[in-house]
């Protein structure tokens, strides 16, 4: 098996007296989709917030090995995790730049690359050719992603005007435009209809197979989880109660008892 992309060891997060995550460890690999599932309030989003630097974990180590080197995520400042360790994420409640156009959203995602190319704006102000080339390349990457999510025609519309499903896809494309090694998706299928949900499956699989990066996925929609995940981590009340391949997790009695109650059907998505 390949070396893990991210290793989460003994992650614990307390808010005052409340323990949101309690000693959770798991790994995720490149070229694979790892799903984190669990009932509401199990601490899934908190795990994401720790990985992407929005919270500082109380205890624990988050090691990312991939792309440019090795990073201890818990020691990095929020934006550095995206900038240097190349971890990208989406949000449960979509967070696009609604007043800016679709293309602008994707260009903002390539900010750090373009800032360097524009000589921190100095060369850009002068209109140097190397910056113009970098900008064209960035537009080209954006166009590529717009083609993959089927939004080329909407490139110059404000992102806030797009229908809901398109906004979800755009947020994933925007995260991918940062050229990440790890992509964290927080409930990407929430609110999608079955057709859109199937399209999403295709997109995620292509991200895994074509782009070869690791995907961490929080999802309630079992049809998505069971079909495309390579590995599943189950959380309940902040603890990890099971882990393994979809088939194994589906039949794990602890998962069925704790997470599903007695309703076994819910896992047959």
């Amino acid at each position, binding site marked *: 098996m390949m070396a893990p992309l991210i290793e989460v060891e003994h992650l614990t997060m307390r*808010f005052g007296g409340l323990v949101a995550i309690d000693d959770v460890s798991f790994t995720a690999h490149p070229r694979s989709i790892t799903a984190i599932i669990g009932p509401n309030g199990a601490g899934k*989003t908190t795990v994401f*917030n720790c990985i992407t630097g*929005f919270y500082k974990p109380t205890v624990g180590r988050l090691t990312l090995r991939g792309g440019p080197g090795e990073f201890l995520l818990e020691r990095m400042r929020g934006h550095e995790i995206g900038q240097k360790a190349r971890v990208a994420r989406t*949000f449960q409640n979509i967070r696009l730049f609604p007043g800016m156009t679709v293309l602008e959203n994707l260009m903002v995602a390539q900010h750090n690359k373009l800032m360097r190319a524009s000589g921190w704006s100095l060369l850009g102000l002068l209109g140097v050719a190397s910056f113009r080339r970098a900008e064209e390349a960035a537009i080209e990457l954006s166009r590529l992603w717009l083609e993959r999510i089927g939004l080329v025609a909407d490139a110059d519309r404000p992102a806030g005007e797009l229908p809901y499903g398109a906004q979800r896809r755009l947020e994933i494309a925007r995260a991918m435009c940062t050229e990440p090694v790890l992509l964290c998706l927080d409930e990407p299928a929430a609110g999608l209809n079955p057709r859109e949900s199937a399209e999403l499956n295709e997109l995620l699989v292509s991200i895994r197979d074509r782009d070869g990066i690791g995907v961490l996925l929080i999802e309630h929609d079992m049809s998505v989880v069971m079909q495309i995940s390579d590995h599943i981590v189950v959380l309940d009340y902040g603890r990890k109660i099971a882990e393994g391949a979809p088939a194994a997790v589906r039949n794990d009695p602890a998962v069925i008892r704790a997470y599903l109650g007695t309703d076994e059907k819910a896992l047959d998505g």
Partner: protein
Amino acid sequence: MAYFTQQLINAITLGAIYGLIAIGYTMVYGIIGMINFAHGEVFMIGAFISLIGFIICGSLGISSAPIAIVLVLLLAMSFSAVYGWAIERTAYRPLRGSFRLAPLISAIGVSIALQNYVQLAQGARPKPGGQIVSGGFNLFTADGFDVRVTWLQIIIVLVTIVLMAGFTWVIARTSLGRQQRACEQDMKMAALLGVNVDRTISLTFVLGAALAAVAGMLFLMYYGVIDFFIGFLAGIKAFTAAVLGGIGSLPGAMLGGLLIGLIEVFWAGYFSSEYKDVAAFAILVLVLIFRPSGLLGKPEIEKV
């Protein structure tokens, strides 16, 4: 020592006034999360209504100071409350759900408009209030320095304590208080549970304005002179007090008021009176940078 004690007494008096204004900021921030920039002007209007009330009392021949004070207090509180209500109704309520800086910009507009409205209606000159309560007593004498407490200072502190106690009771025990705290926690949920959110917010403004009016009356009696511009500085200092104490916290507002009073008076007494306002602003800046949740406030956890 004597000088120190005297400064302490003066500082507590001033701090009580700031604390009363600070409550208005803290309550409004707690419930709708906006800085009511116009609150200082309500305080100024309260001072003006008090001034006019005292003159009316004088011309009606009410010579007893306690009666005059109670009458003017009620007058200033009730009529300033109308200002608080009207400001919320016209300038803030239509903006719920607008972009996040809209209420603050609107509040700045209200503040400018009210200042100039009073300047137009009452003139730009400072207004002397005359002395309503005079006299006092010597606490002790040391190092050839009389430490003096005036009756007025006692009145100010007493009025503040009584109002604070009553107010804390309202918030903790009455249904209005419960509704208000419910709205602070979750406005949508409170509405679903049958709390009249609009009315609760209106009442918050009304109560805040009434307390600011009391502060205005006490300010008028203490300094003896007011003008249309007093609301700006007093408002900023009271806001600093609210932030220092922990915005959203009632005891915090009072504590912050006291601390700002202490800092201002001692700074002026021991360093330089020219820079006493700089001290207040510097504290505002420092607190917001290093401890934005204040002394008694709870730190906010940002939801992502």
